């Protein structure tokens, strides 16, 4: 059993990767300039010609694309190949505004599926495995992506799609699935059902690949224990291809970005300035060899950090941390970028509930940040000193995560509004943008 799906490229030296990126980028910019009038206009406006892009060092000369551009160009404005050469459309769930549709030629599908196959191998799968895919199939990229990756690898693929838990469990037991692919929340639910129904000894799962939504290390730990598996994260977005843009390896410490297909940059979400590796900022992707829907410098709005630290798995491609938040949610307090998701992580790991409210205020030109969190029976004590010690531990943990002090205000249970769907987590009283 090989450790890699495509060993040569997955373990290529830095120089080899850069050489591949240089060559592909020059070609790709030319392809986009010639075939996508929408992007050509953006380049012209910035005064950039395709011949100005000679290597990846010139990447920062290119204009950004945002979700707004995708909406404006809907549906065919960013298409770079005739429809007759396209074989597939996938679409984002579109929680806000218009849906985004992405087009694929057979070449594009192949490279996407290869990326997913790399992710499966990194999770320990090979052709002898039975891969149960319970991501949704259809416009959503989850099901088709992992399904395709499993085919490329030659594993036996169970195209379950999402839902119908009874059937999922029956197949898991009867057909002895070894690898589970679904969202982490569904994995947690399946794990609960497996244990409730006493099926733990009857399943053969060894690994899970869970993506398409945010999850914590605590959740990973719980799922791994409940199912007796190793749980791996996978990242992707329809605009760039789908799941498999990056994936975790046996290290479980960041996701390797498939750098022979995608260039990742981290930028300051406010100024657009490119930040050095290791700094936190917005993740930007350039697709190097997709034909039909080749996005250049697409702003994902995901906030994360890149690491070029050598990985013990042998893969040389850069690793990205789990996204820490969305650039849209970012608060700037005393000049420091603060994300609600960071605060949530600290609360959970200190035993407080994830229901919280962040209040940012400014008095005498100084910003203050307060985190309201609900008291629980577990965190309460008859002893004031004990409560204060726990509170101080939380304040210290917040300070070490955020880099600035946040005050903690303990409130009575059920006083912070539970929201259906997207939670209202932040009240900014500073009115910075009011006229």
């Amino acid at each position, binding site marked *: 059993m090989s450790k890699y799906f495509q060993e040569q490229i997955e373990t290529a030296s830095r120089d080899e990767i850069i050489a591949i990126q240089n060559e592909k980028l020059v070609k790709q910019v030319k392809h986009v300039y010639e075939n996508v009038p929408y992007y050509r206009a953006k380049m012209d406006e910035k005064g950039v010609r395709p011949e100005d892009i000679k290597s990846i060092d010139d990447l920062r000369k290119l204009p950004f694309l945002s979700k707004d551009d995708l909406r404006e160009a809907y549906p065919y404005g960013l298409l770079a190949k005739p429809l007759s050469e396209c074989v597939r459309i996938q679409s984002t769930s579109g929680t806000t505004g218009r849906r985004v549709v992405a087009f694929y030629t057979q070449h594009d599908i192949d490279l996407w599926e290869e990326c997913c196959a790399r992710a499966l191998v990194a999770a320990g799968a090979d052709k002898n495995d039975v891969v149960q895919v319970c991501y949704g199939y259809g416009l959503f990229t989850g099901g088709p992506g992992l399904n395709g990756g499993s085919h490329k690898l030659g594993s036996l693929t169970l195209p379950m799609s999402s839902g119908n838990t009874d059937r999922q469990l029956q197949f898991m037991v009867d057909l002895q699935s070894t690898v589970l692919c679904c969202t982490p929340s569904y994995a947690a639910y399946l794990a609960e059902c497996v244990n409730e129904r006493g099926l733990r000894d009857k399943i053969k799962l060894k690994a899970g690949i869970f993506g398409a939504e945010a999850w914590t290390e605590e959740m990973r730990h719980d799922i791994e224990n409940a199912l007796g598996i190793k749980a791996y994260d996978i990242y992707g977005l329809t605009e760039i291809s789908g799941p498999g843009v990056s994936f975790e390896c046996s290290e479980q410490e960041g996701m390797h970005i498939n750098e022979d297909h995608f260039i990742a940059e981290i930028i300051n979400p406010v100024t657009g300035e490119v930040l050095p590796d290791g700094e936190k900022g917005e993740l930007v992707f350039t697709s190097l060899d997709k034909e039909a829907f080749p996005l250049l410098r697409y702003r994902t709005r995901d906030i994360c950090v890149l690491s070029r630290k050598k990985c013990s798995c042998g893969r040389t491609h850069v690793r990205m941390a789990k996204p820490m938040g969305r650039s849209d949610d970012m608060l700037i307090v005393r000049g420091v970028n603060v994300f609600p998701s960071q605060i949530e992580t600290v609360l959970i790991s200190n035993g407080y509930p994830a229901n919280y409210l962040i209040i940012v205020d400014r008095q005498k030109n100084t910003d203050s940040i307060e985190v309201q969190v609900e*008291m*629980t*029976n577990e965190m*309460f*004590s*008859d*002893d*004031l000193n004990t*409560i*204060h010690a726990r509170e101080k531990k939380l304040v210290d943990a917040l300070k070490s995560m955020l880099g600035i002090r946040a005050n903690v*205000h*303990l*409130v*009575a*249970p*059920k*006083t912070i509004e539970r929201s259906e769907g997207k939670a209202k987590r932040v009240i900014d009283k500073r009115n910075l943008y009011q006229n």
Partner: protein
Amino acid sequence: MSMQQLSVFLENKPGALGEFAKDLSRYHINMRALSIAESRDFGIIRVIVDDPYEATRILRESGYIVQPTPVVGAEVSDEPGALLHILETLSEQNINVDYTYAFVSQKKNTAYMILRTSDIPGTEKVLGKSGVTLIGQDEIVDED
């Protein structure tokens, strides 16, 4: 012989204590004694009620954070030095008093101290030996 006090989390804001008193009244929970330890944002309300187990259940169901806490109830006779005797007895045994508060029973015409100490069984033992009358949960219920 020990008693259960209820320790309740309340926010330090106008109306919070009133709301709590209203809920006790609504659920017919009779308070025998009350003491408050306050902090900047919140307070711990410590109450002695007739049936602490039932009251805990009811209060938790209506959304309060409640923790039953073992305490010792001791009778203090109406004469100089009565409290001092209790405190000295504990101090001799190296038992620390975390907090204490008093209440009076109208019917029995007696004053009681509620003591929360570093060693509840030890407190009961040494006070009992030194002639202090301890009260149990049942004895605070007025027969009316």
